[in-house]
């Protein structure tokens, strides 16, 4: 066991000069810290099955659920950094867990980020019969009746909650926060049965309801106009400086040999660029947004720091619990 680490380092050194020498020799394990059949799982499985071709090896997915992705992270951190273990990170792995200090000794610098595949801005979705035709109308109504309009978010203290808090802060209104843990499915149910007045998550999550005319998007928390939903304005256009959303990043344990990282990055980039993947993303309503190995670490750290700052402010103001 102890010998293998310097040996691996040596192998990495040699093979770094002879590009793509022998990687991969074994099957690559991809840890998905969320349940089988969920959104993240679907994206990762789809792109991994396509990346197998260009990598020239097998990538198998293990769903290690629980603890808001902490459970899967523990496994990834404990794995040998040899390029044969990957993990899919989501918002919670990058922001919530380190901020709350839920996993002792963990931060994203314990991982080598390979690439970001998708990023999905949050949005406000109302049912079709809603009286609010735009974000302005919703904000105006909330000013008239503070704390009356019900907002459906996911977990308390989660990304969607933070988005809502920022909106409240910038618009000077308060909503009644109703929490629906467990992804977008219970939010959909609540929107349809009238338990909430609007839901806060990505437009992609509500794609089927929006295209069937049962729901409408009011705003997307980003600074560029969405191409898939041309009717939904970006928040910047409406005068709000809020950029929030979910994303999927692929990562390996820190100190994984560069050769393996670049081989993986290349394989995933090819899979990402393939027509099949792009078409699939459109079908399921997810936004592709590639960021390669060189840029993704900076992006993740900047995003993390910015959000930590916001969360600290909100906590100081007593708006964010714990």
């Amino acid at each position: 066991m102890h010998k293998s680490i310097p040996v691996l380092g040596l192998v990495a050194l040699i093979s770094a000069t002879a590009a793509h020498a022998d990687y991969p020799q074994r099957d690559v394990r991809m840890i998905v810290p969320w349940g089988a059949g969920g959104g993240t799982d679907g994206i990762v499985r789809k792109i991994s099955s396509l990346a197998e071709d260009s990598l020239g090896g097998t990538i198998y997915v293990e769903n290690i659920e629980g603890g808001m992705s902490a459970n899967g992270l523990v496994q990834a951190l404990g794995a040998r950094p040899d390029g044969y273990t990957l993990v899919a990170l989501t918002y919670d792995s990058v922001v919530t867990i380190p901020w709350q200090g839920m996993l002792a000794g963990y931060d994203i610098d314990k991982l080598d980020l390979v690439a970001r595949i998708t990023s999905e801005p949050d949005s406000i979705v109302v049912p079709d019969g809603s009286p609010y035709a735009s974000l302005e109308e919703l904000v105006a109504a909330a000013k008239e009746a503070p704390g009356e309009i019900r907002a459906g978010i996911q977990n308390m203290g989660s990304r969607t909650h933070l988005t809502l808090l920022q909106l409240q802060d910038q618009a000077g209104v308060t909503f009644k926060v109703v929490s629906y843990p467990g992804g977008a499915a219970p939010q959909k149910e609540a929107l349809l049965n009238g338990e909430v007045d609007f839901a806060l998550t990505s437009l992609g999550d509500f794609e089927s309801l929006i295209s069937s005319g049962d729901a409408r998007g009011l705003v997307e928390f980003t600074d560029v106009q969405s191409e898939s939903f041309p009717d939904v304005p970006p928040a910047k256009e409406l005068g709000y400086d809020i950029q929030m959303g979910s994303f999927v990043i692929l990562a390996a344990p820190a100190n994984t040999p560069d050769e393996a990282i670049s081989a993986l990055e290349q394989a995933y980039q090819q899979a990402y660029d393939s027509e099949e993947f792009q078409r699939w993303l459109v079908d399921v309503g997810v936004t592709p947004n590639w960021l390669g190995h060189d840029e993704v670490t900076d992006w993740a750290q900047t995003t993390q720091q910015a959000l930590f700052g916001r969360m600290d402010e909100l906590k100081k103001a007593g708006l964010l619990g714990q």
Partner: protein
Amino acid sequence: MDYVAELMRGFAVLMQPDILPYLIGGYLIGTFFGAVPGLTSMLAIALLLPLTYSLDITAALVACAGIFMAGMCSGSITATTINIPGAPASMMTAIEGYPMQQRGEGAKALGHAALASMIGGALGAVLLMVVAPLATDAALLIRTPGKFALIAFALIVIVISQRGAISKGLVATTLGVMIATVGIDVMQPVTRFTFGTAVLMQGIDIMPLVIGAFAISELLVQAENKSARTVEVADVKAAPIRRRDFIPPWSEVREIGLFRYVKCAVIGYAVGVLPGAGGSMAAFVAYAESMRSSKHPEKYGKGSVEGIAAAEGANNAMCSGAFVPMLSFGIPGDPTTAIVLGVLVINGLQPGPQFLDSQMALIAPMFMALFVSALILVPLTLYLLGPWFVRIVSIRRDILYASIAVIALVGCYVATYSIFQMGLALLFGLLAWLLRRHGYPVACLLLGFVLGPSLEEYCRRSLSISDGSPLIFLTSPDSLFFLALTGVFYYFMVIRKPQARQHA
């Protein structure tokens, strides 16, 4: 008419030689995974997920339907023969089936289970095809306070149905709910009861609890009495099982009554339609209702065929019900349909309100697969393989229990990839064994564990909607309905019970 034609076309597709093998293969895998303790049909579908890339989507969906339906009824096999329910949804069947097995009526118990599964599963599939849109609208009438009251109803009823041991039932149920609170809070990122350890933060998976409570505790019971089993094996060998022993006697079927079968199927379907309940709750609610309305409630717990029929009919009807919200809104009704949703998504399909209209050609074969597997494959499997099922008990004890121990523990590992969760399985096994020795009902423990997190989530959400006022449970009609129902059950099972005893 278009709709019927589409269903017929779906049936034709299902019967094609390149699709039918997937149904049969799926059904056999589901039977195996459902029957073996430690493996569940949900795990089977999750493990087969990678295969769905290479498969045609229709074939994949048909295979899922077969696995799902088979997994719900094959749990009764091990529940009856060796008192270890292969799946949580069969725990009520173990309570009624194992006493029958000990009386030498194991084959008949399996026959009743299969008949009820057949009727319940087929009726559920018909309901799925005919009233799915109606059921979706009805499900939307039940909001969070109503769901809270429904879960509370199930938990209260399981406690009061423990006749003679109500306080022990309450202890076991509460313990189950308490165990489920370990880990990250249901609403916010706060850890509870982890005592500063990272391993407890992951929470406690259902697999170690099921394996511990049923498989390992039974191993401990069996390790205790060495001689008892060998005598029984001799009995089984002395009277060879014939196929006709599996056919339930007509008089008993009449006594159970068509109405009860239909009622349990409807209950199971309805529980399935409500997101977040699942098979064990369907089986239990139908069982309790059957007990409430029974002419012979005193037979329950001692080998009542009515109880078997109610539980097995309902859990198979649940399969079809769980597809309703998944297909019409993309809201899965139970964990297995959540994975089937993943199969659809991987194939680039997003279920939504228009999904049934636009993709009926794709979905119809799966509907028919649910129907066919219930109506034909359930009885056929029992007819062909039944004698082998019963012969499980005549396998040498050392082979039988060593295999169960290995598969249960490795199954736990495969479901969670965690050594810690395997350890928990042992711990819960020990706990469940102690509880069983002193008459604490383990079924209560499991139902408390399964439903506890939902109970807390719905309770806290309701109170956040009402700004902390518990009056919301009385002012919401849906919640009031289930509270009243709880009162009705309390009346029949606790208050009126002494009179029933005088009659008996």
